């Protein structure tokens, strides 16, 4: 029982990280119909920005800030204008292909420029065990991950629902044409979405890298999990992505403990197939008109 509780908390911690990646993915899809097949690499890369900054002698916390800013600049603004911009009115396929190619570029550059080896990445809080209830010990690092991720998600929810800009962004996501008529600066809102996606990916990167180490090939798994979380929760919902992320995280940890480690990766994929079979709009999603 206490084992299960520990696994659940560990699962929620990794799940909250997955949720960060899935939220950004959903936001991008909603506001600009961009399916970002490089999302996993977007989560892999910022950790290397931080590692490079630390190599240059910048202290840890400042290096994290540098990583987030670099990520917003390169994976947010530059991605918006250099990659997505020229392709927006060309239909879906060129954009899909371009993000696939971008994923390969990011992965190969990290491998060729930085290193092909997995890099140790420092944790926010020390990896020390604390006793919550008698018999239930959790590492402080995990609590740190959970708290930071939940604060980020909470902050985002507040921004989207509670500020004028946030509501304008939601309007853009729901119906760009009407939003434009109502005077919402749609272009700027789309840029904000890209910046937020990059910021969330950087947060996820900083939180996940101490657990899985920073490695060029991490993007494949992370991207897959972000897709699964977004679809399981409901593609058209931010809270769907949160629920999906947490669910996948918990399942992933339970699977690692109770199912063979060789097939651990398969569990979220089977969940994905089940959801598409029986509840295609996602667990929290609304039914949408089927695209022809």
């Amino acid at each position: 029982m206490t084992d299960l509780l520990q696994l659940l908390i560990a699962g929620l911690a990794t799940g909250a990280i997955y949720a960060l990646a899935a939220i950004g993915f959903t936001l991008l899809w909603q506001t600009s119909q961009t399916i970002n097949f490089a999302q996993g690499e977007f989560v892999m890369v910022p950790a290397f920005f931080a590692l490079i900054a630390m190599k240059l002698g910048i202290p840890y916390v400042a290096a994290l800030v540098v990583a987030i800013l670099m990520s917003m600049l390169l994976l947010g603004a530059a991605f918006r204008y250099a990659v997505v911009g020229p392709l927006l009115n060309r239909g879906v396929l060129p954009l899909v292909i371009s993000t696939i190619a971008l994923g390969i570029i990011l992965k190969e550059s990290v491998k060729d420029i930085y290193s092909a080896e997995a890099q140790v990445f420092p944790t926010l809080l020390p990896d020390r065990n604390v006793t919550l209830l008698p018999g239930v010990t959790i590492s402080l690092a995990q609590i740190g991950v959970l708290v930071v991720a939940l604060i980020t998600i909470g902050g985002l929810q507040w921004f989207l629902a509670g500020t004028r800009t946030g509501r304008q962004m939601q309007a853009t996501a729901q119906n760009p044409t009407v939003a434009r008529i109502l005077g919402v600066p749609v272009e700027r809102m789309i840029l904000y979405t890209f910046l937020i996606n990059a910021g969330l990916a950087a947060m996820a990167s900083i939180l996940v890298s101490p657990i899985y180490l920073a490695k060029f090939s991490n993007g494949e798994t992370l991207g897959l999990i972000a897709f699964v979380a977004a679809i399981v929760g409901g593609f058209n919902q931010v809270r769907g992505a949160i629920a999906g992320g947490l669910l996948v995280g918990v399942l992933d940890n339970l699977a690692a403990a109770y199912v063979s480690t060789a097939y651990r990766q398969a569990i979220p994929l089977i969940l994905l197939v089940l959801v598409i079979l029986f509840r295609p709009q996602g667990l929290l999603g609304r039914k949408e008109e089927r695209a022809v």
Partner: protein
Amino acid sequence: MRTFLIALALLVVLALVPADLTGLGLPYPGLKRYGTYILTLWLVTAIAAMGVNLIVGYAGQETLAQAAFVGIGAYLTAIAGKHGVPFGISFAASGLLTFVIGIALGFPALRVQKHYLAFVTLAFSVLCWLVFRNETAITGGVMGLRDIERPILFGLKLRNAQTFYWFVLAITAVMTFVLWWIVQSPWGRAFTALRENPLRAESLGVDVRLYTLLAFALGCAYGGMAGSLYAPLVEFIDPSPFALGPSLLFMLMVVIGGSGTFAGPFVGAGVAVLLPEWLRAWETWYLLIYAALVMIMMALFPGGIVGLARVSVRKRQP
């Protein structure tokens, strides 16, 4: 008739490329073993790419599992061959099995939104790779399966690189013809209608979902049959060429060649097979350069190489 003659001439030229013509008094020594191997690999890759082109270029869907389907065909043929099953049967079985899997994957995915097929195939691709790697008793795991026999055709051994090339060329020609026939048939024209204007196609009585599903399954079957030829070609298979990365490369190669054009998959497969040979000296930078080229291409010429060639031909003859 003209198309038919051009196709025949192309086939003859392709058949002669690896052959030693010095015996006929021509100064052409043919290709060495490795050159013939690369040429055969190009054909096998092109078969799988034709399948992707049917799915992407004609049915307007995305598949991220073509390498996994190639893998299913390859493992099936390799394992069946070890138990003495003749190649013809494993080849047909590879096509049939991947067709059925295609239906099973496509049916639920196509009920929903457009991109769900991409995600379902993505998941399937990773699942297949896990099975290839983990089921050591059947697939040999990371050690792979070695010493895969090349088929024997009516008592004629295809052990020799050149004979095997001709064998693959003949199969490729038949499969190309079948696909050409499908695309030209009313069935195939429905695809073009679908791609150009789905709403109108549906109002004219085209069952969009059924056509898309069949196109997807058929594309998967082309992958499976390509795999069935791949196993005896390389004679050793392990899970790595059937992972997610190679599946993504299949998508890139079709779009680079020109998706929705008939020659596109051949051009794309040629680029994908030959480029790593030419860029040998660049080693690990090769993928980086390739992906960057793809991105530039998407921004400037989304029609691919074939589309680009068409535009430049049209410009020359006003």
